[in-house]
């Protein structure tokens, strides 16, 4: 099959799976998950073939796989949509395909496939466990998710959105995929809609990302207005970029390119949960864990970063390496670096195993944004890929831990113990060895454990670029964030896996099934090994042993391949020091911490996430409620509009009374009225039976009348 045709087909299987499951197979759980995983596998296979073929093309950046069709006629031109696989999207396609497939498989185990139906389970609530009788005594086992098929349908639709976004060659279909994912994110966060917290989290996520999306749509509209096209290949030409960079936009002294880039970037702020629109991501952990892994770590939030990497030529229009950053890049670098530190500082004080990872995701996405802001194009893409692998691994690992803990909770029957609170865990390393080792690899990769992990190489690339190009402020912020990253990662590992079990539930935790552990193992391989494709060529000893593939490959997406930052020992040493130092300090401290009270970092300010939720509630939600309830309803509606009516009411009332007394009552009522009333009453009484009050019967009647009259008119007058 021609590669272009294959690329067109990649997103389709998950979409088909969605419709198949929703329309036909939803009653049959086994069939539903087979359809979904089969579809994910087909897309994976297609992606791998495309990726392999992309590797075989020389100068893929100049001659990418591309094809497009006319879609919408707009007066005398056409709006085109199409597909494009250049080195960047090929690399992204690779990790998306792997993580999506792994998460699909993991979901089978996570939703307890093969277990009996629960005793009191309801659709819309997490399963509570089923009682089974074995050898004469009863015990409680995990029960299957009541809406099992629905979950696979949703993640299928989600995968379609992500693949569409990655393979599309223009901002319009990218936006379509983007919004499909937004919808799926809403549906999946609110998957257990019986829980009020999940409902609120879903609405919050949807509303918050919508703010970003509105600005992004404005950016797309402006871009279309300015250039007449939305296709990357037509926009990212020297002429167009030059025009955009020189035309002033009239807002804040930005050039048109700068304004468009910033508007699009606001979309990323929403989607990738950057400050100040980060508030939705931690709450989104209400969804099932595979959702957290897929949407809120590996794919959807990465899509935001992918988009800014994609529009990098636009962001950096008029900028060349070595020049001071332009205004759009400054804003992006600032937001990214700030978010990296900000997210990491909140993560150190969270006790919920998934919330730590949520804030960690916010922080790591900040790294990529910051890297892009300082022009480190390849480093941003590299960290995007490694992060997707190790963060998906960590989320799936945490899901496995929660699952093991839930097993313990079912065993003891004490449902007051929160299976997600890390202070209820401890000592799980012996109970769940595979999960432990996978989580350890993921955690070390996240904190940048030197040489062995992928996270080290990608983070090091960002550090080297920031330091080498003289962005000291960004470098220091990111290094501080890296230190905090190592601290909260080791805190999490120590509290969860090391030491002795702190509760009975942790003592009875159990390793999860192979459908859950196998994806962990595969992702762990990538989380450790993917770094080897991006070792700088002039790195001592290791440099040049494996060529710096990621740099050459992804870098060739840009017309001018960016220069690799020269090797410098200072950022490397700082990176190693903060990573190892953070891990060590954290281990030394937290191996002695047994309760939240002993934890020195439980500062209210950090614990309450800098009171952002409260502040937004005070600044936006409360005023809006006041505006609608008090201003619109009470003042405008009841006061002003009703007030006007109260003036007109009495006046017309008096006129009416006069008419009534002199005309109505004597003439109409007594003369015409009573006579006709009797006649009408008689008619009405006899016609009453056809007034059934059922609209559909009226409609049928009118349809019959239309047919009869139409028929008569046709045959008598026209025929």
């Amino acid at each position, binding site marked *: 099959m021609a590669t272009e045709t294959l690329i067109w087909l990649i997103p389709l299987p998950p979409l088909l799976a969605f419709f198949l499951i929703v329309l036909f197979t939803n009653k049959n759980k086994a069939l539903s998950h087979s359809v979904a995983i089969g579809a994910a596998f087909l897309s994976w296979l297609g992606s791998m073939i495309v990726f392999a073929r992309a590797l075989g093309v020389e100068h893929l950046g100049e001659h990418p796989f591309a094809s497009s069709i006319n879609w919408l006629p707009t007066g005398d031109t056409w709006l085109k949509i199409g597909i494009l696989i250049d080195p960047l999207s090929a690399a992204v396609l690779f990790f998306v395909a792997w993580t999506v497939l792994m998460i699909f498989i993991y979901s089978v185990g996570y939703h307890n496939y093969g277990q009996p139906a629960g005793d009191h389970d309801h659709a819309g609530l997490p399963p509570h466990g089923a009682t089974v009788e074995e050898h004469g005594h009863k015990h409680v086992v995990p029960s299957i998710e009541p809406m099992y098929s629905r979950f696979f349908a949703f993640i299928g639709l989600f995968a379609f959105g992500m693949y569409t976004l990655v393979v599309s060659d223009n901002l319009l279909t990218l936006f379509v995929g983007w919004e499909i994912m937004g919808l799926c994110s809403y549906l999946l966060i609110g998957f257990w809609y019986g829980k009020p917290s999940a409902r609120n989290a879903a609405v919050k996520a949807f509303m918050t990302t919508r703010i970003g999306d509105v600005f992004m749509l404005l950016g797309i509209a402006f871009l279309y207005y300015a250039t007449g096209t939305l296709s990357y290949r037509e926009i990212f030409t020297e002429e167009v970029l030059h025009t955009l960079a020189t035309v002033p936009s009239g807002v804040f002294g930005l050039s048109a390119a700068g304004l468009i880039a910033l508007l699009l970037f606001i979309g990323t702020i929403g989607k990738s949960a950057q400050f100040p629109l980060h508030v939705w991501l931690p709450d989104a952990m209400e969804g099932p864990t595979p959702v957290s892994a897929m949407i809120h770590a590996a794919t959807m939030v990465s899509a935001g970063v992918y988009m800014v990497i994609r529009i990098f030529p636009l962001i950096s229009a008029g900028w060349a390496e070595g020049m001071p950053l332009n205004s759009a890049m400054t804003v992006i670098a600032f937001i990214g670096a700030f978010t990296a530190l900000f997210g990491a500082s909140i993560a150190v004080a969270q006790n919920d195993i998934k919330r730590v990872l949520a804030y960690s995701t916010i922080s790591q996405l900040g790294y990529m944004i910051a890297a892009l802001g300082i022009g480190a194009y390849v480093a941003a893409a590299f960290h995007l890929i490694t992060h997707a692998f190790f963060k998906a691994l960590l989320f799936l690992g945490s899901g496995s831990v929660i699952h093991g803990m839930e097993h313990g909770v079912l065993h003891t029957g004490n449902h007051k113990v929160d299976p997600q609170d890390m202070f209820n865990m401890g000592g799980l390393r012996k109970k769940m060895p595979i999960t432990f080792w996978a989580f350890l690899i993921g955690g070390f990769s996240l904190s940048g454990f030197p040489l062995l992990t992928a996270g080290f190489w990608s983070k090091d690339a960002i550090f080297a670029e920031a330091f080498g190009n003289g962005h000291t402020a960004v470098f220091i912020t990111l290094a501080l964030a890296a230190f905090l990253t190592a601290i909260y990662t080791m805190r999490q590992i120590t509290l969860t896996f090391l030491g002795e079990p702190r509760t009975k539930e942790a003592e009875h935790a159990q390793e999860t099934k192979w459908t859950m552990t196998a994806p962990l193992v595969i992702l762990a391989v990538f989380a450790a090994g993917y770094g080897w494709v991006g070792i700088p060529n002039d790195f001592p000893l290791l440099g040049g042993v494996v060529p710096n593939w990621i740099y050459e490959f992804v870098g060739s997406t840009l017309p001018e391949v960016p220069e690799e930052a020269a090797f410098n020992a200072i950022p490397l040493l700082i990176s190693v020091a903060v990573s190892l130092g953070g891990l060590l300090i954290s281990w030394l401290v937290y191996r002695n911490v047994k309760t939240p009270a002993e934890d020195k970092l439980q500062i209210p300010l950090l614990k309450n996430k800098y009171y952002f939720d409260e502040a937004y509630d005070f600044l936006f939600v409360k005023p809006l409620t006041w505006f609608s309830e008090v201003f619109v309803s009470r003042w405008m509606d009841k006061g002003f509009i009703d007030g006007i009516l109260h003036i007109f009411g009495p006046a017309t009332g008096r006129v009416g009374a006069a008419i009534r007394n002199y005309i109505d009552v004597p003439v109409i009522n007594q003369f015409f009225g009573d006579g006709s009333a009797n006649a009408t009453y008689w008619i009405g009484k006899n016609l009453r039976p056809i007034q*059934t*009050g*059922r609209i*559909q019967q009226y*409609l049928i009647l009118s349809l019959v009348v239309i047919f009869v009259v139409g028929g008569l008119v046709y045959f008598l007058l026209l025929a």
Partner: protein
Amino acid sequence: MIPLSWYLILAAGLFSIGLFGVLARRNAIAILLSVELMLNAVNINLVAFWRYGDVAQMAGQVFAIIVFAVAAAEVAVGLALVISVYRRRNTVVAEELDLLKW
């Protein structure tokens, strides 16, 4: 090129499905959905006639967009009514909404 009559047949089919839904479904939301189907059948006709007629005349497209806008407004009002009715009477079955009945 696909002949015009195919679109018209599709639209007629869609319209009939919608009409059937309006007449036969008991759920008020389903009736609303069916009304949407009928509106979309009209849209297909409009756009098809535009495409096969004088393409430079944008009237067909413009009418279709106006129908979208009206349909969106109609659904907003309709759903609000359904929710309001549901809160009051705890049902959305059209046959049970018989306050008008003698």
